[in-house]
């Protein structure tokens, strides 16, 4: 059977292997498609200052920036700022999750609490966290507390509001179905409401992740002694332009890293969705 089948399938579809070509080639094509624009961008960045299209002092060639970045990395300077930033944002972000998810689950579960609180929560969410930065500094000073607090503030609202709406929108049929099996309220919450809410909660978490970096960098630019935001403004004031760009690139990398991490987590927790 097997020996008869094999040549038959080979005869039947001779065009298919040719069309899709070898796997390594398709992988190469895919990698090329994904990176070509990026490569062109970097080339432009390199060549434009080199050829004098832009002022070299304001936009140093990419290679110079990379060199500056490498030196900062080797001396440990970059790491010091990176560490400060990531610790602050992580701390504020995780604190926001620990606060907003349980709170959102409870508020979402009680219709009265939901109806009473949603308007004020929407108001807070739509108050740009940065507009409140002076208030935070006024009350909490310019130390770590105010910076972590502003990240916490910025991260809380999207997570909280998404959690509330996630709980509210759990398919009532699923609740009915679980209830009909006579399970306790706690189990209903833990086994049905929570897993059903995860994808919507995660959308909020991702918004919070983006917000955390944005707000933190801005806060560090205004008042700090370490952190990537501080480093960028410091470099600018001292006319260390390649270093400034190195700091900007590092922030991009940090943003990508966070987004990638949260996306993978989201995919993992929502793998049951189509």
């Amino acid at each position: 059977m097997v020996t008869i089948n094999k040549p038959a399938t080979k005869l039947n579809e001779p065009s298919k292997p040719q069309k899709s070509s070898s796997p390594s080639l398709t992988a190469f094509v895919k990698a090329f498609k994904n990176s070509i624009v990026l490569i062109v961008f970097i080339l432009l960045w390199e060549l434009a200052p080199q050829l004098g299209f832009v002022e070299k002092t304001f936009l140093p060639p990419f290679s110079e920036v990379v060199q500056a970045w490498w030196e900062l990395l080797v001396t440990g300077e970059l790491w010091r700022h990176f560490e400060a930033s990531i610790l602050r944002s992580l701390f504020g972000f995780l604190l926001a999750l620990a606060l907003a998810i349980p709170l959102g689950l409870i508020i979402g579960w009680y219709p009265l609490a939901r109806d009473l609180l949603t308007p004020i929560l929407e108001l807070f969410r739509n108050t740009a966290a940065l507009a409140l930065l002076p208030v935070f500094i006024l009350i909490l000073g310019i130390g770590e507390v105010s910076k972590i607090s502003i990240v916490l503030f910025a991260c809380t609202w999207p997570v909280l509001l998404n959690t509330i709406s996630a709980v509210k929108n759990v398919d009532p049929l699923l609740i009915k179905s679980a209830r009909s099996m006579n399970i306790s309220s706690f189990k209903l919450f833990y086994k049905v409401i929570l897993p059903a809410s995860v994808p919507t909660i995660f959308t909020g978490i991702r918004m919070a992740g983006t917000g955390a970096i944005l707000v933190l960098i801005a806060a560090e630019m205004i008042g700090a002694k370490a952190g990537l935001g501080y480093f960028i403004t410091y470099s600018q004031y001292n006319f260390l332009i390649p270093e400034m760009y190195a700091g900007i690139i590092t922030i991009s990398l940090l943003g990508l890293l966070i987004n990638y991490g949260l996306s993978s987590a989201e995919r993992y927790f929502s793998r049951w969705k189509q």
Partner: protein
Amino acid sequence: MDKIKFERVTKKFLVRDEYKKGAQREFTAIKDIEFSVKEGEFITLVGPSGCGKSTLLDLLTGLTQPTKGRILIDGREITGPGLDRGIVFQQYALFPWKTARGNIEFGLEAKGIPKSERKEKAEYYLDLVGLKNFADRYPHELSGGMKQRVAIARSLAFNPDVLLMDEPFAALDAQTRETLQTELLRIWKKTGKTIIFITHGIDEAVYLGERVVVLSANPGTVKKIVDIPLKDRLEDADIKSNPAFINARREVWNLLHEPEFQGAHI
């Protein structure tokens, strides 16, 4: 002995008043329903849309209480949900984050069956509905008929005495429906469960039910209970041309098409 007994069951809902803004009025969904189901009986419920079939089933699950009257199971009044009744909802109601197996184990866990036994039991019921090879699929990876079979397996697995089914095959194509109908009859014969089965289809009601309860609408009341004198539903391949089937079918059809029903649509 009556397994289930409806005693003058009435259910009213509060609905918005169309004439007075902001006011509420009572709406009688079902009124003075009275009939019993015998132990091990397969009974089907038919009636026009909105006559209160799902309302009746909700009362049986114990998630809602009748406004008047009471429902008895084994002589005891229903006061809340319980695992002596298994429900198959019209829209499957599977948990999308659980695999077919996980969904079945959910009910077993609710019943307090130890983890080691759950897997084995889930396997058995998956096999019973012909889904052994789909145990680890998520609901979105299953076809409509497969989902419905998982839902049936889930409610069978925790071994309830009574199976309550609300138009479980309504969303399926004719072929799948027929397969599942015979499968359900097979399972019923094998397990001897009491089954209450709601349907829109007259053929389905007559084919499956030993008795067909015909309901009328506005408010929902029992119009007539028709006995179906068919013996060997599974053996007789051509049962739908059997005179007994044809007669019963005609009777139910006539009951559903009497003038009062047409009036209900105006």
